[in-house]
């Protein structure tokens, strides 16, 4: 399967939904049980089982990763157009494609923290795809903070933009500039330098490496860096990609002129990083592909349905609390450091926050709106709670998730009005929106715990014996 075409994919997803046992809440023959599916009436399920819920969840995992893959391919196309002809217009389109690519991916993060492909997918000695703890592509796809000085030129800012360990920098300063150490820039080079020197800040691949190559450091509008940030994101010049080949003009590295070869290498890096991102995403998509994906098959097994349900809820809880409220929001708020801001080059962190929260809500509601607007709706945990005789709890979590979304929408809207997240964590009158969202996430986590309790999926289902599931 070389390229997934949008249209083909929609068909696949539709076919998949038609193939699931249980009720997708759609009437008639488009429903899950075809003509037999009489229960589905306008999205209200009368009878939903755990099995239905985990199947829906698995299909939506496939859909959200497939969307991420499609958007990454669209990004690659725009990047190729851009480096061939680096005009301001094509640069702008390339950045828009990156932002668009983040939309589905942000909603996929609820599929982390549950021993799934994104965290654990790897190839064994025989080349088979398997799951092994912590061996997955997540870091290569989405790791941050990123010591950008390893990749390309930087302007010294606040002492916080350095590699953890100066000794892990290449002799020539950075990969793009160091032609001696890295004569060829391709996927293999980027992969080999990932976590160079075992320094976890040395992130060379993934969304944020591409982001840095498109935006550059997030300096102030006047190109300086001071403690008081402004609303502007990074401002890399299109001339950083001018080459003799594309006949746009003199290659630059920021303010300084640079040799033609540097811009060629920068372009190569950009395209290779996009290719790598596509490869990594595709491996996750394949694992989740309904019918054929090995993890899809494992996840929907009847005999382990309780474990699968526990995994879904664990992912929701761990993303809500530790990852989103904790690492992505509270630390940035406390330290007031751009280094602790997720998408710091593009100032797109407000979307990361909103979309991560949205993913949790999606999972609970058994719903996902695809990038092309198609609404996927299947059996939900909400339905399951109702069927289990817990309608109050179902509504309680639905309310908590809606409250979080309302609070996160404030961060999102404020950013769209010109106060990016890095400004919001700095200005006292804007910090409240961040704190409120953190508190809402904490509250929803408490309710998720109640749901785990109510559905009788204890952590024991997940951890099993430490011999099996520890770590």
């Amino acid at each position, binding site marked *: 399967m070389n390229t997934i075409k949008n249209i083909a994919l929609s068909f696949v997803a539709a076919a998949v939904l038609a193939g699931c046992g249980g009720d997708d809440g759609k009437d008639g023959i488009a429903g899950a049980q075809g003509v037999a599916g009489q229960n589905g009436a306008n999205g209200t399920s009368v009878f939903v089982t755990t099995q239905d819920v985990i199947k829906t969840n698995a299909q939506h995992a496939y859909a959200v990763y497939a969307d991420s893959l499609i958007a990454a391919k669209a990004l690659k196309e725009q990047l190729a157009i851009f480096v061939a002809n680096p005009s301001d217009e094509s640069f702008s389109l390339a950045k828009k494609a990156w932002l668009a690519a983040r939309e589905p991916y942000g909603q996929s993060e609820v599929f982390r923290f549950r021993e799934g492909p994104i965290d654990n997918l790897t190839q064994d000695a025989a080349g088979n795809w398997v799951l*092994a*703890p*912590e*061996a997955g592509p997540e870091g290569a796809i989405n790791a941050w*903070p990123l010591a950008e000085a390893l990749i390309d030129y930087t302007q*010294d*800012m*606040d*002492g*916080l*933009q*350095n590699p*953890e*360990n*100066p*000794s892990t920098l290449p002799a020539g300063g950075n990969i793009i500039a160091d032609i001696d150490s890295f004569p060829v820039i391709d996927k293999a080079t980027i992969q080999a330098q990932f976590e160079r*020197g*075992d*320094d*976890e*800040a040395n992130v060379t691949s993934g969304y944020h490496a591409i982001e840095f190559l498109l935006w550059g450091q997030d300096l102030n509008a006047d190109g300086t860096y001071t*403690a008081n940030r402004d609303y502007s994101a990074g401002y890399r010049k299109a001339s950083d990609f001018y080459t003799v080949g594309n006949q746009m003009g003199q290659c630059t590295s920021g303010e300084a002129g640079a040799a033609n070869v540097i811009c060629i290498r920068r372009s190569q890096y950009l395209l290779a990083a996009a290719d790598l991102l596509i490869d990594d995403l595709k491996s996750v998509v394949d694992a989740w592909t309904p019918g054929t994906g090995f993890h899809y098959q494992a996840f929907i097994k009847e005999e382990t349905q309780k474990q699968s349900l526990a995994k879904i809820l*664990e992912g929701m*809880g*761990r993303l*809500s*609390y*530790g*990852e989103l*409220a*904790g*690492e992505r929001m*509270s*630390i940035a*708020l*406390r*330290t*007031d*450091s751009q*280094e*602790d801001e997720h998408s710091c080059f593009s100032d797109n962190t407000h979307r990361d926050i909103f979309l991560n929260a949205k993913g949790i809500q999606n999972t609970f509601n058994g719903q996902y709106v695809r990038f092309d607007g198609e609404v996927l709706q299947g059996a939900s945990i909400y339905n399951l709670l109702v069927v289990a005789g817990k309608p109050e709890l179902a509504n309680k979590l639905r309310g908590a998730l809606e409250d979080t979304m309302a609070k996160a929408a404030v961060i999102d809207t404020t950013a769209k009005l010109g106060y990016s997240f890095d400004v919001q964590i700095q200005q006292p009158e804007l910090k409240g929106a961040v*704190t409120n969202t*953190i508190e809402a996430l*904490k509250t929803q*986590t408490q309710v*998720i*715990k109640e749901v785990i309790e109510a559905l009788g999926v204890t*952590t024991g289902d*997940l*951890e099993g014996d*430490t*011999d*099996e*599931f*520890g*770590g």
Partner: protein
Amino acid sequence: MMKKNALLLSMIVVLSACGGSGSQGKAPEVVSPPVVIVMPGQPDDGLAPLSATTPDPKEHLAGGEVTTQVINQDAFSQSAPAIRSNFELDGVFKSGDHLFRGVHVGQGPLFNNPTCQGCHIKDGRGEVPSSPDEAMTSMFLRISDGQGNPDLIYGDQIQTFGMKEGQSQGLLPKHGGAIDEGIAYGEAYAWVEYQTIAGQFDDGQTYQLRKPIYKVKDLAYGDFNPDVRLSPRVTPSIFGSGLLHAIPEASITSYADPDDIDGDGISGRAVFVTEPISGQQKLARFGYKALTTSVLEQISGAYRGDMGITNIVAPQESCTSEQTACIAQAQLEQDKEQDGLDLSVLGLAQVEFYNRLLAVPVRRGFDSANQTWQADVVAGRALFFAAQCASCHIPRHKTGEAEASLLGDAGLLEVAPSHTPIAALSNQVIYPYTDLLLHDMGGSCATIERETAQGEACTQGAQCYWVQRCEGLADDRPEGSASGTEWRTPPLWGLGLVNTVNARATYLHDGRARNISEAILWHGGEAEKAKAQFKAMSANERQQLLTFLTSL
């Protein structure tokens, strides 16, 4: 405990007041109250004695329930399984991890590395620079005078990097630079050169060891004190430290045998010091020389000393009163996180929690489906006991209740005033292979010399280096209550994954040993006999012992 056969007998020896030595079979006539001497090595943990030949049923779970199944490059970076599904604790752990990896505003002026993780590479060991031209970034030299007091100018550790306004890259040392220019350069540049020592096992198989010679140049703040002592330290791994912290003091002191009552030539010594914040006398169980009582004390000292990040436990910048350039630079640091400190109490508490909850990797060589060990692992384990390695590297302990942080319970946005013990770490049977006591490991050092690059004696100037040469493991630098030949037994758990986590990592306190075999061969002093037994083993037995150690 497993000290040969005697230990399987009752260990309470009642000696009469007249002494029980070489009596002629007559009962003494004068009866005084008997003196009860408890032989070392009997912790009151309710566990049956550990067999030298048969592993415990759950021995593969080195950290008890705090064991991770991850055995790849991230083996030392995992949280205890019990907190993964506790969303709040998982969140605290995760925030601590982020801070542990990240750089801080207000770092410096003097530091060895800007981040915790920069030294504790992938939460594992640091490394020796690959050449004298590379500055030390995950190891450093401790420094003192002959009595172990801090050097008046340099304090107790040589920080390689300094800072200058407007330049964020660490500033390497420059001879006299801080004095001449008033700039906070790094303190001094240290490096290591190795001499090869040849030796052979009893069966004639030869080996080579690297004997280190430490050299220091580019002293930026003036000369060292005339009786200077140096002690190189490579960053140790930190996983499992929360479990070690939770071993009851009485269990550890039960192994202490300062007067060698049992006559086995091994005399572990317990050290008690005053714990910061609580002010209580506690067993010093952390640090290469058993200097600190807790993970909190250890990390707060590392923040200040290694990174130049002040905190509530260690609030003073690491400039000494003699380092005016450092003091001036510190005053330029306006960006404090909380109450004039670089690191907030919350940040410190989260990092403490993170450190304490890092899990121990599961043992390899165990087939959990059939509950069987590889034969070589079991054979090597028996050799480990037979050679008396287990006299200091005590295989098994049981934790008590893991006390709460002295700082309070960390959340996401604040530290609560409550103090909740950490259930995940409590009452665990663990297999760390350490007694956490001080032992005399032998060796000695020559007086530190001043030499040129050519090895000629000199007295001053940029080309006149300080050179330390030692025999054996000694560093000749007293520290706390430890002498210049004493070291705290390090835990061995995770030993076989050290190079999986960091391929460049080496072994022992200063990384001189390139592999586990070399590390054993450097043992001396109280471990001389154990080392001799290792050398006397057949090649096959040595391989079995190493297979066992690699399975840890």
